[in-house]
């Protein structure tokens, strides 16, 4: 779905490239988690995938990025946006309206969704994000989690093939963060949508993603299944990425020679594995 080949990018105002020689292939329907230390270039990578680079941020662009067969450099940003729906990090500035329903209409009106389909898409997207009952509420009155779900729903209403989210749970408490990821994975499974999430909370990514991409100093250090990536817990720590505690525990027990099973991604897997170890 997304192919990045030998991609290097330098912002106009700096001399050093932010991402260097990146090669990445994201298959159709994958749920991809991107993480890395602050300033590692992970946001730049997503800007390249949704076309914000090169269309909004000028700079030196080497290599190629294609999304669903479209070269991002040769395609208008608005055409790309129909394929890749992006939810920004600062959702409060993303909102254009003061009422939930109007926020949902905005994108669909702009992209010329036939008026007879709008109602159906609107209700479906709200229901997919579990906020169907909030349709007439002022956005001000929503909780952080509800706002995030609305921001996602307003993009889902455009039926993108790829959904891209930049730290969707940064402002949320753990319960709402899990809620957002639950809804995202369910939606992606039902609609076959490719999802790319930049996220600092690695425990969530390990649990929900089926591909983990670790970025370090502008380069991709690992891109594989969570189990494969998490087996490198020591190297990850060196580049400022801390594995979930459950993973660290099981990796340590493996190093101690006590545990010989596969890498554990979350608490449930660790529990099951431990129950056997201490049997």
């Amino acid at each position, binding site marked *: 779905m997304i192919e990045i080949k030998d991609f290097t990018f330098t912002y106009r105002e700096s001399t050093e490239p932010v991402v260097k020689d990146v090669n990445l292939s994201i298959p159709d329907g994958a749920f991809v988690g991107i993480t890395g230390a602050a300033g590692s270039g992970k946001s730049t990578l997503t800007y390249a995938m949704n076309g914000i680079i090169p269309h909004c941020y000028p700079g030196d662009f080497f290599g190629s990025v294609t999304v669903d067969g479209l070269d991002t450099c040769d395609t208008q940003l*608005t055409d790309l946006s129909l394929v890749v729906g992006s939810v920004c990090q600062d959702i409060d500035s993303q909102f*254009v309206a003061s009422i939930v329903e109007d926020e949902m209409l905005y994108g669909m*009106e702009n992209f010329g969704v036939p008026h007879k389909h709008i109602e159906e898409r609107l209700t479906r997207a709200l229901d997919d994000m579990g906020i169907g009952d909030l349709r007439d509420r002022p956005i001000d009155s929503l909780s952080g989690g509800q706002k995030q779900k609305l921001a996602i729903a307003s993009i889902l209403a455009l039926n993108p093939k790829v959904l891209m989210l930049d730290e969707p749970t940064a402002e949320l408490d753990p319960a709402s963060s899990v809620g957002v990821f639950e809804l995202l994975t369910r939606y992606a499974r039902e609609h076959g949508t490719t999802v790319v999430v930049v996220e600092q909370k690695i425990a969530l990514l390990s649990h929900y993603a089926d591909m983990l991409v670790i970025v370090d100093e502008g380069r991709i250090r690992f891109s594989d299944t969570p189990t494969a990536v998490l087996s490198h817990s020591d190297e990850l720590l060196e580049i400022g990425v801390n594995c979930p505690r459950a993973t660290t525990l099981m990796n340590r027990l493996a190093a101690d020679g006590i545990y010989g099973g596969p890498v554990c991604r979350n608490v449930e897997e660790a529990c099951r594995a431990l129950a056997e170890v201490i049997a």
Partner: protein
Amino acid sequence: MKGFLEYVPGDSLLHRLNPVVKLIGAILFAVACFCTSNLVFLACMLALALAMSASCGMLRATTGLMKAVFVFSLLLAIIQILFTPSGNVLVQLPWGYIGTGSLLAALTTVIRLEAAAIPLFLTFYVTKISDMTNAAVKVLHVPYKYAFTFSSTVHFIPVFLNDMSNIMEAQTARGVEFDQGSILKKIGLMVPLCVPLLVSSVRKTNSAAIAAEVRGFNLRTRESGYKQYPFAARDFLALGLVVALLVCAICLSVLL
């Protein structure tokens, strides 16, 4: 400041009027107030404005607003009292006098400003900004870019006010004495805070612009809007009423 000029949901007659009618009506109403100095007519207009605000349950917000307008108009009124001598002399001043006419003129100013301001503010309370701009694009053929600029400006006002209050709180917590001293001193304390506010505003507008762009802002045309804003009988009635008021005002000022 929370809720200042922000839409309050409701189902009153004013809520249901066509947004364009509300906007034009409010402007014509204000124009009418400025066309005449007939005190009785202006008092009627003020009463009418208050009746409208009562009809949609916004009296409380209106009184708050009236206080603010009152302070402003009082300043003008005082200047008028002091510097436009007319009518019977009441108090002799070194540069002229305060007369009954001056007092009357001052009273007129206060009532005029109050009457003219209320419907304008009321429009914001009973109309969603998105309805106002969508209707302006659909009905009045205002270019979407201008309408969007207007609506995002209004949309960002509470955001910036919120930022400002966060910044002031943070500085108060560091010991800046916003909670005491004169207004002048407070303003002096606030000046340096404009820098962080500006920085956060620029960041926000930048990300808002990109967000709007990826959601197809450029593609929008007059036909894009999903909601229709047809005129109903009540809309023509309301328009007729304000036009009549305007004609009245003009007649009063020409004939009397």
